[in-house]
């Protein structure tokens, strides 16, 4: 099993009454609430924390793309990834991912990802995403009915740009290029490709057909995700797809401390900050055409077929009205001592058949010191105890170089004790 360090890069200085201001934290949040100098300090903090994660034994450093929101201040994941690719040694650079429909021309993605694969010595994981409605169709203005078509055209162009030996012409519907001849090319023959989704059948078909790693990137945990992830694996099996758990990534907020009691004292405020300040105008959630009719009908069926969380629980979690341990019980967070955390992650990974855990070790307005402790405890006292999970299955979805270097670093750490 693999473990990737991740944070949403949430702006930590929103006013206390932000959730009551009646503004959306997506698309239209007042920019006056963000201080560019403090954002600069925040970016430096995330770079330091992820460099530490590289030293502490994590398999990957995950970065993502969101626009026009204090919830995740990473408009270009490639910028943060580039800061890491040249200053870390072992972990994969997990870009999860570039919103392909938003790059014009998409060869930009082929170039920048190749640059990072070169700079990191072959440690890139190429995540391709559709982007949330807020990002792709509201902030970046892509007609929702064209989003998937644009994504696929861009994906095909990027893959060809990485593999075609000669310059070629690309006559797409949205991109027309007479001379495609990408410099540089990636170190890896073809970087591993991950595509996260939110339950659309079209995305399931894509990852099954292409043998990509699928990702369920939510922040509501096991119980909420269970019906969807179960339906996904059933679908993979029905279609005769690859059932290898390393083809499934999952995000999970983790709050690790020396003791359970300490965890509550140290993380509760930050967890509430994370959920309470993620306010979303309902008008931005479901633009027409973003989800196909076929997928919308399937999703509605899954919603009504039981399981998952009640709407009341979701609303309470969103408003910060759950106790720390209720967040934990409902799956939003996994909290407590390293012993407790690893037990809970073992259950989660086994239950959902997950081979790639994207652990969110900084959330909301958590201090750097606390995030650093979280990283250290998780890297040194949780990860080593879970390496047996799915160890019998090959992992073709993380770079070979990272796998080798992390195994070597882990062996070096064990040696003095022997």
């Amino acid at each position: 099993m693999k473990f990737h360090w991740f944070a949403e890069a949430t702006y930590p200085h929103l006013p206390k009454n932000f959730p009551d201001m009646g503004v959306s934290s997506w698309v239209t949040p007042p920019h006056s609430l963000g201080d560019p100098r403090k954002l600069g300090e925040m970016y430096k903090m995330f770079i330091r924390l992820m460099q530490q994660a590289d030293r502490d034994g994590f398999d990957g450093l995950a970065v993502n793309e969101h626009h026009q929101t204090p919830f995740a201040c990473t408009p270009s994941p490639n910028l943060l990834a580039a800061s890491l690719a040249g200053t870390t040694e072992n972990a994969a650079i997990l870009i999860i991912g570039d919103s392909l429909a938003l790059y014009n021309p998409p060869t930009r993605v082929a170039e920048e990802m190749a640059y990072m694969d070169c700079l990191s010595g072959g440690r890139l994981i190429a995540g391709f995403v559709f982007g949330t409605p807020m990002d792709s169709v509201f902030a970046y203005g892509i007609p929702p009915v064209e989003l998937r078509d644009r994504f696929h055209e861009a994906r095909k162009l990027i893959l060809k740009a990485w593999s075609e030996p000669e310059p070629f012409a690309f006559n797409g519907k949205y991109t027309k290029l007479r001379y495609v001849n990408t410099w540089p090319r990636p170190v890896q023959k073809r970087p591993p490709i991950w595509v996260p989704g939110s339950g659309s059948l079209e995305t399931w078909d894509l990852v099954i057909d292409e043998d990509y790693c699928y990702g369920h990137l939510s922040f509501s945990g096991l119980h909420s995700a269970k019906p969807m992830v179960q339906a996904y694996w059933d679908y993979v099996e029905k279609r005769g797809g690859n059932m290898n758990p390393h083809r499934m990534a999952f995000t999970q907020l983790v709050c690790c401390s020396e003791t359970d009691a300490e965890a509550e004292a140290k993380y509760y405020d930050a967890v509430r900050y994370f959920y309470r300040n993620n306010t979303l105008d309902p008008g931005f959630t479901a633009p027409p055409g973003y989800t196909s009719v076929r997928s919308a009908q399937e999703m509605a069926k899954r919603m009504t077929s039981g399981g998952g969380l009640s709407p009341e629980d979701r609303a309470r979690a969103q408003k910060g009205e759950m106790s720390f341990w209720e967040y934990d019980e409902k799956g939003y967070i996994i909290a407590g001592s390293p012993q407790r955390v690893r037990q809970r992650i073992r259950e989660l990974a086994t239950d959902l058949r997950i081979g790639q855990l994207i652990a969110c070790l900084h959330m909301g307005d958590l201090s750097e010191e606390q995030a650093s402790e979280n990283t250290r405890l998780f890297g040194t006292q949780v990860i080593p105890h879970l390496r047996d999970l799915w160890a019998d299955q090959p992992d073709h979805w993380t770079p070979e170089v990272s796998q080798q270097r992390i195994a070597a670093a882990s062996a070096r750490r064990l040696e003095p004790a022997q």
Partner: protein
Amino acid sequence: MKAARETSGAFDIRLWSGGSGGTPVLYLHGFEQHPGAAPFLQRLAERHPVRAPEHPGYGSSSGFEHIDDIFDVTLHYRRLIESWNLGPVDVVGHSLGGMFAAELAAVAPHLVRRLVLVSPYGLWLDEAPMPDPFVMTPPVLAAAKWADPARASDETSAFDAAEGDSAATFRALNLAAATKFLWPIPDRGLQRRLQYVTAPTLVLRGEADGLFPAAYLNAWTSAVAGAKSLTIPGAGNLPMVEAEDSFITAVEGFLS
């Protein structure tokens, strides 16, 4: 008005028709839905042959995959009119249908005798941005659409449960198709092409229309040579529903 299916090239569409005598009226519906056999269409059919096709991608009208941009829709309507062999027609277009009607009048002026545009999309004024209907919650949309939201139940629809889809799916398909032409800004360059419109043109707006700012009336009459505008009191975005008599009077007065 009777519904039937009509095939035109790659498009298999639903079309409501009725009436006889005089120049035919082509009615092009708005961004939300085809109104079916609406009372105002029946009133128009008392004096004209009326044909009201559903846009490709709406309801059960197919062929949306053959449309990349507004030019494809314009050519679709040009061929449809030509296939009728009835000569030039009067075109009444509402909202998105108004945008299509104006494109058609610019590209195929020989096919359009007179043009009526009701709160048409297609132009953009930085000083009076067109409201974004796709971000509106149902109550906000209702407030923008109607002078009196209580009249919403008077709106007719081409939704037909017998076709198999749910009302929610019908609406999702319709609005998804609309985003092709209206997202993120309902401007596909029509302003440049309006110089080619030769048909006498009337632009209508309900006085309380919250989707089509009043400033656009002037923008349209400035862009289309000789165009007239008229504001209909007691109506929002659907004057043909909310102020049917005034609407019919205005349209018939202009077409006769």
